[in-house]
């Protein structure tokens, strides 16, 4: 009785667990798969393997974050992959290759990053405006705009290729230790300095990049009134409207945020592949939906968040590794991957286990 009253006033630990149950499950799955991978691969806890794992998950993480922003409103974005392709193509088209002997043009890199982010957000804005003011269904609008965005990507980069400055790729994909100036901790580091040097040598730059994006984009959004609005709209649009929420603004903002995340994904993909390719993003659309569901965000909107999506993306990344080290026939790899995704997504999204009344499972 006491605990019941208590839980109404401040979030007790049980209530917190209950509230974030599905996100916690996603993290549990991630750590479990990480444990399996580490036990199979003796070299797992080496800087190189950790960095490559982080790098390989990163674009999917941003694609998932993009999808999450939109799914929270109860919508869906089938153009995530195309926006990533478009941003990748745009970046590779805008980078200027310096003449022989010239230093890398830093101003050009900054210009490219800003332009690509604007392009991503702009694509999201177009999606949002059409969905909200066109009063059209998101699934079909983003299906159409995805065709348009991938057309633009093909226009910018008809054949794979293009120049991407090496330093741009290095900054995002190497390890922090490698990016720091030599002897940053002294010529012969001792004690704490030696420890720090080792730690920094372990941290992938992409991980710091992800933290930065979360700190600068997601957390301020989540904590703002706008963030609250977006969740409210996804939870119950009518009630949100009645409570004075600017529903249209909230929805459009969610799509813009989604486009921005997809743009960041495109930027990272460019750093990772060091080239432009108008078709690289396509796979991320459907994968992003899978990890959003796996990460505990309801497709009906109003709940979940980016944290679970990130865990799900990393968990998904371990599956091919595990299959590889478990010596599964490479031929069977897609089958096992598919089966794991199907099971996980089905278990995560099935509503038969979570409701009391059969009618609650219907629309």
């Amino acid at each position, binding site marked *: 009785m006491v605990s019941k009253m208590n839980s109404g006033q401040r979030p007790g630990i049980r209530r917190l667990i209950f509230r974030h149950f599905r996100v916690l499950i996603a993290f549990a799955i991630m750590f479990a798969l990480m444990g399996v991978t580490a036990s199979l691969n003796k070299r797992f806890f080496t800087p190189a393997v950790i960095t490559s794992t982080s790098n390989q998950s990163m674009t999917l993480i941003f694609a998932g974050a993009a999808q999450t922003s939109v799914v929270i409103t109860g919508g*869906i974005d089938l153009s995530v992959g195309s926006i990533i392709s478009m941003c990748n193509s745009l970046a590779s088209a805008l980078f200027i290759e310096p003449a022989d002997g010239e230093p890398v043009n830093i101003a050009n890199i900054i210009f490219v990053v800003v332009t690509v982010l604007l392009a991503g957000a702009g694509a999201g804005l177009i999606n949002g405006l*059409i969905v909200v003011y*066109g*009063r*059209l*269904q998101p*699934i*079909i*609008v983003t*299906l*159409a*705009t*995805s*065709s*348009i*965005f*991938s*057309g*633009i*990507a*093909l*226009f910018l980069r*008809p054949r794979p290729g293009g120049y991407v400055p090496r330093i741009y790729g290095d900054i995002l994909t190497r390890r922090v230790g490698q990016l720091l100036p030599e002897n940053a901790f002294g010529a012969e580091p001792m004690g704490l300095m030696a420890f720090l040097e080792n730690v920094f040598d372990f941290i992938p730059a992409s991980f710091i990049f992800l933290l930065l994006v979360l700190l600068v984009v997601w957390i301020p959004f989540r904590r703002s009134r706008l963030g609250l609005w977006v969740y409210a709209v996804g939870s119950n*649009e*009518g009630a949100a*409207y009645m409570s004075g929420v600017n529903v249209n603004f909230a929805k459009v903002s969610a799509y813009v945020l989604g486009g921005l995340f997809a743009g960041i994904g495109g930027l990272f993909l460019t750093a990772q592949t060091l080239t432009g390719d108008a078709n690289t993003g396509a796979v991320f659309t*459907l994968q992003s*939906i*899978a990890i959003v*569901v796996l990460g505990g965000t309801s*497709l009906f909107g109003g709940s979940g968040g980016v944290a679970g999506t990130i865990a799900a993306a990393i968990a998904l990344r371990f599956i091919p590794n595990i299959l590889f080290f478990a010596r599964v026939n490479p*031929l*069977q*790899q*897609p*089958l*096992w*991957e*598919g*089966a794991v*995704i*199907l*099971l996980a*997504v*089905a278990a995560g*999204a*099935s*509503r*038969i286990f979570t409701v009391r009344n059969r*009618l609650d*499972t*219907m*629309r």
Partner: protein
Amino acid sequence: MTSETNTSKGFSIQGWYRNLARDERSVVISYSMIILIIIAGATFITPNFASPNFLTQQLRIASFLGIIAAGQMAVILTGNIDLSIPWTLNLAAVVATSVAAGQNENLAFGVGAAIAIGLIVGLVNGVGVAYLRIPSMVLTLGVNAVLKGITVVYTGSAPQFQQTPEILSKVATEILFGFLPFAVIIWALVSLLQYLVLSRSGLGRKTYAVGNNEIASYLSGVKTPRVLIMVFVLSGVLNALAGLMLAGNAGRSFNEMGDPYLLPAIAAVVVGGTSILGGSGKYVGTIAGVIIIRLLDGALNIVQVSPAAKDVTFGLVILAMLFLYGRAEKVRE
């Protein structure tokens, strides 16, 4: 429901159109769109565009998409979606060609195997959506991934026979009497069946009912799970059939043959005026949607525009059609 009110005052197109129900208007618009594309194609691209020969070929190619779209439409009518199209048809085609092994007399077994695959996939999707209450979008996505895995294992572990038997190729490519493609006959049969089921049968009425309001249908005694399973099975079987036809058309089965058909199938259904939320839409509209998608593709192929311009045009046309009749009413619940 429609035009009784203005019969007394003589006939005017405006009045007639105004009295049409929403889903009937979309049919009118989509068929007008077909005529518009043909006229525009003949005027601006090549007079050949309106030639019977060209249109016959387009119809033949359209019939593959048409068969897929028929199944997809039934699923969309219930408010669900089937994203397992690509690898259902791929697996069906791959298994069919290897069972038939290029022999006409084995074709029946190949067709049987393909249809069985479609049936099983449809059952899995249907049971998952109807009883486990998994949102169809993620379930069929996962099923698609598993089917891809099965296909890769099946084709990769031992070399499979890929060539299609001659009869199957003939069915997919032959044009009877110079104007009637055999594939179109099959599409027409599928369409007739689909039309009868959707607008003349209890199952059809229940399909619309479930799409409109699943809870109300359930409470009024409709066995909603059965309806959901039926539409997914229908979609699975029609996908398998389309897989057979596509293999016949190409002369062989190959991996990733289904990937280009997922989004056009959804687009065709929606362009044909079916609401993506389910519950409303006419099958004749879906036929128009398929033809529109096909003619656009054909037109853009003739002009040899870049793939970039093709994608952009495609997206813009779908958006334009949506703005014509896909808009929701301006109300808040």
